C-alpha cells in the first residue's frame, strides 16, 4: 500500500535497530513508556519490541481508552442499555469490557439493543432512522475522539434531533500522566508521546514532563519505523543528558494542536471534578462531561443512571505495573483472581495490556539478548 509501506520498510527498521543498539549504555536498563494504546497495538502487531535490545523495555501506559473505563461505569452503561426504548451504541471493543456482572455483549444477549458503531455520527444516523426510540452513544476516548463526539452533539442540536443523547466518558491524557509522574517510586526513563492525542492538543501540554520531572518525551506516529525512531530519539536525549519534548510525528502533529478541535471541545464539554480510572483510582480533572449548554443531550441527566461505584479490589496493582515498579506477575492477584477471562485491572482487560500479554505469552516475548 502506497504511503503506508514506506513506514514499514524492514531494512530501514534494521538500520534503526542498529542505531538504537549503538545508543544503549551497556549494563543500563531503560524503561520507556508508550503512553498510547495505539502504540501498544503497533508494537505488538509488528513485533517492534523484538527488534530492541533486551535492556530497552517498553512499558504499556494508561492510554487505552477502553481499558481505563471502570467497572461501575460499564454497569451504568448496561443499566441504560436495558431501559425501555433505548438503543445503546458504542465502539466494538467497549462491548467486551467487563463490568461487575457482565459485559455489554452479555446485555445484548439478554435482549438489550446494543449496537456497535464506528463513529458517533453512525449513532446519530441510527437516531434519525428510529424516531420512536432513544439512542444513547457511549462516548469514550481521550482528546483524540472527543472532538468527533462534540461535533456530533453540535449536529444533533442544529438538526433538532431529540431522541439522541450521550453518556460521556471521555478522559484527558495529562492528569493520569501527572499522577504517574508524581509517584516517588516511578521507574520510567522517558515517554513515547501519544501521536493521535497530540494531533488535537499539540505538543505543548507535554512540556511539563521535562520541565517538572526531568524526563524526555518524543511524540511519535504509529507505524513501526515511527516508533523505532522515537525510541532512538529518546535514547539520544538520555545519552546526551538532555530532556525535552520532541516531535517525531511532525507530518501530522502541529506544536499548538488543532485549534478548531479544541474550540469545539471547550464549547461542548467541561471538566469533571474527578473521574475514576480502572486500576488507577480517582484522578482530579481527568474526565469530561457535557457542559450546561448541552445538558439536554446528556444521557446521565435524561435517564436515571444508578451511578454505580465498584471499587477495584485492593490487591489490584495496576498502578505499580504501569509505573514500572513491579512486573505483572509480581501483582498479588495476577493469574489467580485476575485473568484475561475475568480481568480486574486495566492491564489485563486489553489483550495488549502488560498483564494480559504476560499471561498469554509468558516470558516468550522477553527472550532477547541483554547488551
Amino acid at each position, binding site marked *: 500500500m502506497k504511503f503506508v509501506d514506506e513506514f514499514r520498510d524492514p531494512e530501514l527498521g534494521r538500520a534503526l535497530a542498529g542505531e538504537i543498539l549503538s545508543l544503549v549504555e551497556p549494563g543500563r536498563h531503560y524503561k520507556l513508556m508508550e503512553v498510547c494504546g495505539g502504540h501498544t497495538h503497533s508494537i505488538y502487531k509488528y*513485533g517492534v519490541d523484538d527488534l530492541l535490545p533486551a535492556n530497552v523495555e517498553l512499558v504499556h501506559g494508561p492510554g487505552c481508552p477502553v481499558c481505563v473505563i471502570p467497572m461501575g461505569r460499564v454497569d451504568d452503561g448496561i443499566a441504560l442499555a436495558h431501559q425501555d426504548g433505548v438503543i445503546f451504541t458504542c465502539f466494538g471493543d467497549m462491548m467486551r469490557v467487563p463490568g461487575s456482572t457482565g459485559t455489554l455483549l452479555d446485555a445484548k444477549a439478554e435482549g438489550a439493543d446494543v449496537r456497535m458503531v464506528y463513529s458517533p455520527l453512525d449513532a446519530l444516523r441510527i437516531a434519525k432512522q428510529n424516531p420512536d426510540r432513544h439512542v444513547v452513544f457511549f462516548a469514550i476516548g481521550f482528546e483524540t475522539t472527543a472532538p468527533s463526539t462534540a461535533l456530533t452533539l453540535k449536529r444533533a442540536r442544529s438538526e433538532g434531533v431529540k431522541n439522541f443523547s450521550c453518556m460521556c466518558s471521555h478522559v484527558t491524557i495529562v492528569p493520569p500522566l501527572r499522577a504517574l509522574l508524581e509517584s516517588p517510586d516511578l521507574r520510567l526513563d522517558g515517554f513515547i508521546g501519544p501521536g493521535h492525542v497530540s494531533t488535537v492538543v499539540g505538543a505543548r501540554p507535554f512540556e511539563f514532563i521535562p520541565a517538572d520531572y526531568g524526563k524526555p518525551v518524543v511524540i511519535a506516529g504509529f507505524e513501526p519505523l515511527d516508533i523505532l525512531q522515537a525510541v532512538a530519539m529518546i535514547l539520544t536525549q538520555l545519552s546526551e543528558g538532555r530532556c525535552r519534548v520532541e516531535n517525531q510525528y511532525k507530518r501530522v502533529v502541529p506544536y499548538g494542536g488543532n485549534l478548531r478541535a479544541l474550540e469545539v471541545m471547550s464549547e461542548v464539554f467541561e471538566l469533571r471534578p474527578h473521574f475514576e480510572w480502572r486500576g488507577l483510582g480517582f484522578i482530579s480533572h481527568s474526565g469530561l462531561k457535557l457542559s450546561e449548554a448541552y445538558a439536554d443531550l446528556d444521557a446521565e441527566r435524561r435517564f436515571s443512571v444508578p451511578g454505580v461505584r465498584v471499587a477495584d479490589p485492593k490487591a489490584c496493582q495496576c498502578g505499580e505495573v504501569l509505573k514500572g515498579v513491579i512486573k505483572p*506477575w509480581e501483582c498479588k492477584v495476577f493469574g489467580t483472581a485476575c485473568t484475561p477471562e475475568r480481568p480486574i485491572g486495566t492491564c489485563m482487560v486489553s489483550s495488549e495490556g502488560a498483564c494480559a500479554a504476560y499471561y498469554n505469552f509468558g516470558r516468550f516475548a522477553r527472550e532477547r539478548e541483554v547488551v
Partner: protein
Amino acid sequence: MSDAAAVSEREQKILGIIATARGKRAKFRDEQITMAHGAGGKATQSLIEGLLVPALGGAALGELGDAGAIQVGDAALALTTDAYVVKPLRFPGGSIGELAVNGTVNDLAVSGARAVALSLSLVLEEGLTAEALRAEVEAIARAARTAGVEVVTGDTKVVERGHADGMYICTAGLGVRDPRSRLSPAFLRPGDRILLSGSIGEHGTAIMLARGEFDLDATIESDTRPLWPAVDALLEAAGPEVHCMRDATRGGVASVLNELARASAVSMIIREAAVPVDPAVAGAAELLGIDPMYVANEGKLVAFVAPDAADAALAALRSVPGGEQASEIGEVRTEPPGMVLVQTSFGGRRVMDQLVGDPLPRIC
C-alpha cells in the same frame, strides 16, 4: 538463596500455574450464549470442548476434525454437517446456496474425503420472495454439479417473519475417505512445512463490505469454491507425506493454526511476508483495523506436509485453477508448544494468538 533466585523461582511458579490453567480443557461457564460463541475463537472453543464434547463425544468427535471418520464394513467414510446463516444472502462472488454446498464439501475434502452425497435442509422465513428462493436453489444445484456431488435428501421448514434472515440452510455431507493419506492433527511433526492454497481474507471482507455498514468501495469477491481439486492434487503429489489439512473458514488462518498447535502440542512459525493478501483486502483490513489472518475464507486450505515433499506439494497446489498464489508460509516446530509465532514483514517476531472477540458475526 539470593533475592534474584527467589524472584525467578516465584516467577517460574506463577508461569507454572498459568500453564496448568491454560492446558486444562476449556470450561463452559457462561450464563448465556453471546455472539462471541459463534466467532470461532476462545468462546466457541469453550462451548465445544466444555459442553458438546463431554456430553456427546466418542472417539471420532473428540478428534474435533472438520468431518468425523466412520468405518462401515470395508467402507472408510467421513460425515460432516454445517449450518449457514450468512447475512446478506447474496454477496459479491457468491450466495448462501453456493456456500452451503462448498462449505460442506470442503469440510470433507480437508479431511481427505471426496464428497459423494449431500443432505439439504432449508429454514425459510415467511415473506421470502419466490424469486430469491429460486435463485438460491439454482445456486445450490450449480455448486453441487461443479463439486460433483448429489443432493440425495432434504427437508423444508418455514418460520414466522422476523425469525430468520430470509433463509438459513443446513447441509450434511457424506464422503469417501481417500486411501492416499491418513490425515490427523496427531500426525503433525516438527519440520512439517505449512502450505496455504491462496490469498486470504476475501470472503469475510466481501461480506463486510456487502453489508454496507462502511462507506468503502472496493471490488472484493468471496473466494467460495470447492477444494477437492486442490486436495486431490496434493494427495497425488505427496500422498502420505500430507499429514493434516484444514479449511481456513471462520476465524481465518490464525484460528486454524492455533487450534492445531494446541491440539498437537507443537509450535508453528509463520512468515507474514509469505502470506498472500490481495491489495484491496489489505487496504480494507488496514482501514478497519482488522488482521486478514483472522478473516474468513471459503475456498482456502492450510496443509501440513513433510519437508521432503513440500516442494512437490506446493507445485501441485499451484497447478490447480485458483491456486496460482499458493505459498509455503511457515513450519511446525516444538517450542513453545501450543503457540503460533509470526515473523512479521517488518522483521519482528510475535505471538499470533487465538481470536478473543468477534470481529464480524454471521459470515457463513
